[in-house]
């Protein structure tokens, strides 16, 4: 009979750090961490030595100096006297614009092409094949340059619209002007007081606007910003934003579930207004954005001695429209859910599409009427078209090239996603008597979606990152402003490039977080 004996209790010896598998992993990790820290420290040490030798001290102070250059496409007020930081913000917004527009169109084109590539129509499927191969196998930078060249060479110049024997005319009943300086489309506006005496649009909108914080000018002529009576210095702004964002995300990450549960009254609930960690995160993010804006000196629109820099504004009209739209879409969705429930129970689907349509359209129409919506249309005045919304060539070329290029990849993803669905599914749908369009829409695509979404995320990321090639066509995104002209004018390579990378990293991580969230929600729920 074997006697069970405890292994002799070993006291800890130093050599166990290497030979004992229990401790070895810790040793390896500590060594790796030390190595990494040493490497990082070495880089920083070198950097500070080199910068000292060059006589440059790393500092972000230049961000608050006047930028000195103009930007054509700006979503917020900006002029050449605004600080570099504001130019950077304008650049970030432009990056986001192109990323969002590009992702939407790339998805639409990609899905369409992917489906059509499987079409039984020989010409169509071949044509789509040629499109996909051509776009995938030529560098995107070339496509961007070529798209720009086409935008410049093909449409007519504004002068061809001029005079009695004009060779070009404003299309779509005089609402859309396609020129080689860009496309002018009708511009929606609120309020009736924004047309000047001579019929031109006033530059300063006078809708309701609100802001926090205040801007003032000190004795030396520099703009100072204050919020709730505290003066906001650049350093304070910087750290406040960083720290508050960090704290907010850590809190939500750790306590998200708990907070949500306690806010729900400590019980699982199916109420549509329950607090979920996702909604909580959204709320915290919104609050963080407001904090950020107010700290950056979002002020009541006010020009003090010619300085209007540092003033961010939100149009209340616009906020109202967005809020109403969100609410009515939500109601519409709940009507649909109710119809689904009734169909499940009784087998008969009530006709609700007109109610849903009305729920969305009517409040919006009333609101828009109440706000005094009107459109301005492009008119040729002086050198250029005036009024209307100007989509510049650089924007269109970049948008077109990026979405066509990315769509070629998305098409392949969609195609392989569809082909991954077993043939039995579409045969079953045929047996039920569904048309081929409905089979695709109701049976195949929803299932394919689960295969499609993960690679789609990386394509959205690629599109966003490729938007940095905007400099090739002179579109002022973050690479064009902060890492372009600002870098050139100030010679601050280290600060601008690092800040730019940080911004791209934030955008990328946010996109992949949002998309992963969506992916979780459509994933096959295994119970």
């Amino acid at each position, binding site marked *: 009979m074997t006697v069970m004996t405890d292994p002799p209790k070993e006291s800890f010896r130093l050599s166990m750090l290497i030979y004992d598998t229990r401790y070895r992993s810790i040793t390896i990790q500590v060594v790796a961490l030390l190595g990494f820290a040493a490497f990082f420290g070495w880089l920083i040490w070198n950097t500070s030595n080199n910068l000292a030798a060059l006589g440059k001290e790393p500092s972000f102070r230049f961000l608050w100096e006047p930028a000195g250059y103009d930007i054509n496409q700006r979503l917020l007020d900006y002029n050449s006297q605004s600080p570099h930081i504001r130019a950077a913000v304008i650049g970030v917004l432009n990056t986001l614009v192109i990323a969002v527009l590009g992702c939407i169109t790339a998805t639409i084109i990609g899905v369409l092409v992917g489906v059509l590539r499987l079409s039984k129509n020989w010409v169509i499927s071949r044509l789509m094949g040629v499109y996909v191969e051509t776009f995938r196998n030529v560098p995107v930078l070339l496509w961007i340059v070529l798209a720009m060249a086409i935008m410049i060479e093909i449409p007519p110049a504004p002068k061809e619209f001029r005079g009695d024997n004009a060779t070009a005319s404003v299309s779509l009943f005089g609402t859309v002007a396609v020129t080689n300086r860009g496309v002018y489309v009708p511009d929606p506006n609120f309020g009736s007081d924004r047309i000047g005496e001579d019929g031109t649009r006033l530059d300063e909108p006078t809708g309701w606007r609100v802001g926090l914080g205040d801007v003032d000018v000190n004795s030396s002529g520099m703009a100072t910003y204050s919020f709730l009576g505290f003066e906001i210095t650049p350093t304070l702004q910087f750290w406040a934003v960083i720290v508050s964002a960090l704290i907010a995300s850590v809190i939500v990450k750790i306590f998200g579930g708990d907070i949500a549960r306690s806010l729900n009254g400590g019980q699982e609930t199916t109420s549509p207004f329950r607090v979920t960690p996702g909604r909580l995160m959204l709320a915290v993010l919104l609050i963080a954005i407001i904090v950020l804006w107010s700290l950056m000196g979002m002020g009541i629109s006010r020009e003090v001695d010619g300085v209007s820099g540092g003033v961010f504004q939100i149009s209340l009209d616009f906020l109202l429209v967005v809020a109403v739209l969100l609410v009515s879409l939500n109601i519409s969705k709940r009507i649909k859910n109710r119809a689904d429930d009734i169909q499940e129970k009784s087998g008969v689907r009530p006709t609700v599409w007109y109610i849903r349509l009305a729920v969305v359209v009517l409040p919006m129409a009333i609101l828009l009427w109440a706000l005094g919506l009107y459109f301005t249309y492009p008119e040729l005045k002086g050198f250029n078209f005036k009024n209307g919304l100007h989509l510049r060539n650089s924007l269109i070329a970049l948008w077109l090239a990026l979405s066509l290029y990315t769509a070629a990849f998305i098409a392949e993803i969609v195609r392989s996603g569809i082909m991954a669905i077993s043939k039995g599914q579409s045969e079953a749908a045929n047996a039920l008597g569904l048309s081929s369009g409905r089979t695709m829409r109701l049976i195949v695509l929803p299932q394919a979606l689960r295969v499609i979404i993960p690679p789609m995320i990386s394509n959205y990321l690629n599109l966003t990152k490729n938007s940095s*090639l905007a400099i090739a066509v002179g579109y002022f995104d973050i690479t064009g402003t902060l890492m372009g002209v600002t870098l050139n004018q100030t010679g601050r390579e280290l600060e601008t490039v690092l800040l730019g990378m940080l911004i791209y990293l934030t955008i990328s991580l946010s996109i992949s977080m949002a998309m992963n969230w969506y992916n979780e929600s459509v994933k096959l729920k295994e119970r």
Partner: protein
Amino acid sequence: MSDISFVRTDMLPEQEPPATTVGFVGWARANLFSSPLNAILSILSIVAVLFVLSVILPWAFMSSWNATSLTDCREQIAAAYGPDHHGACWAVIKDRWVQLVFGFYPPYPIDGTAHLGSPPEGAWPAYFRPIATFVLILTAVAPVLFDKLPRKMLLITAVFPFLMPWMMWGGTFWNPVGAMLGFGIGYLAYRFIAPIAGSLAGVIAAALLPIIWWLFLMGGFASTMQSIIALDIPTVNSRKFGGFTVSIFIGVVAIVGSLPLGIILALGRQSDLLIVKALCVGFIEFIRGVPLITLLFVASTLLNIFLPPGTEFDIILRVLIMVTLFASAYMAEVVRGGLAALPRGQYEAADALGLDYWKAQRLIIMPQALKISIPGIVSTFIGIFKDTTLVSIIAILDPLGLTAGIRANAQWNGIYWELFAFIAFVFFIFCFSMSRYSMYLERKLKTSH
């Protein structure tokens, strides 16, 4: 009963199918006009294609190939096809294609100032070295891509990473030999130290000794050997690299360099060691989260600031470093996919055999995982190869960068589409053939299971 007469006793002869279901008509009915919508779509597409071709073909083919400048071109085309015709001026390609392919690489490195067509005494054929490098790349890659080729060719693959930079940059042959010796030292160190001091010490020695060799001793070794047996070819400064040569060079070096880095990162990402894993994930996500162009800005403006004062790499080398790091993050994800696709049983079998981690990786896991990853590696390469055009933004004269120089020349000022069409065409040929190969491989891998 004789009702039988109603029953046919002999088979009817086979009839021709109706004329509308066979031949071109039948094919067209089935594939082009199966429904009204399809018919409309088909006709619209055919009209669109014809329209595009009617614009492009006359431009491309009613063109000028022999001209000395753009004005000359325009005159020739006007003389041949009438003044209203817009034809391509391919003469610019004829004049500059050597530059677009080889950049400023000296045709005869033995005498850097000799022009093409006037070889100095005893020179190799023009552009011998870049062409030989390209052939070497093809021979080295072939046994990896096609497993029907003799396995002995893998030896070339193993030597090629050392030879390629030497063939392009030149200098003494003892440099690549010294670099290879580093691996020999690492192997010997493991071989002799592991039995004495244990496997971990062996691994550490095998990693540390070669690094010491490369950083401190190799230079001395190469120059000593060079003074004993002179084996060298003329040095070519990497600033002379340009055109498609630089695109291919950066692409190949980045892929070859990123493979080992990517494997290490992928293993680190799968590791149970928390800190190692965090470092690897952090690196991969950081690189994948920023655009390549920002990394190229780092290469062109910041890398020198990060390194000790006085060290200076030339711009091509800095770009190589950053593009390799960039590629390695993507490679890590490809390899991770390969690792994840291996059945769990392979890991367990390796454990059951009592293999330690490194042995299991080396003998069981990696060979299979890498084989599955080859299509992914090829697509990563296509991506990197296309992305090399971005270096034109930091003033490296790749084909796109050269267009600025060519258009700044008084002869060709104002030329546009021809250059870009040519560059796009060459890129298409390269990438298309590679993607076809990758598809072929995917099909082959799919059927083999």
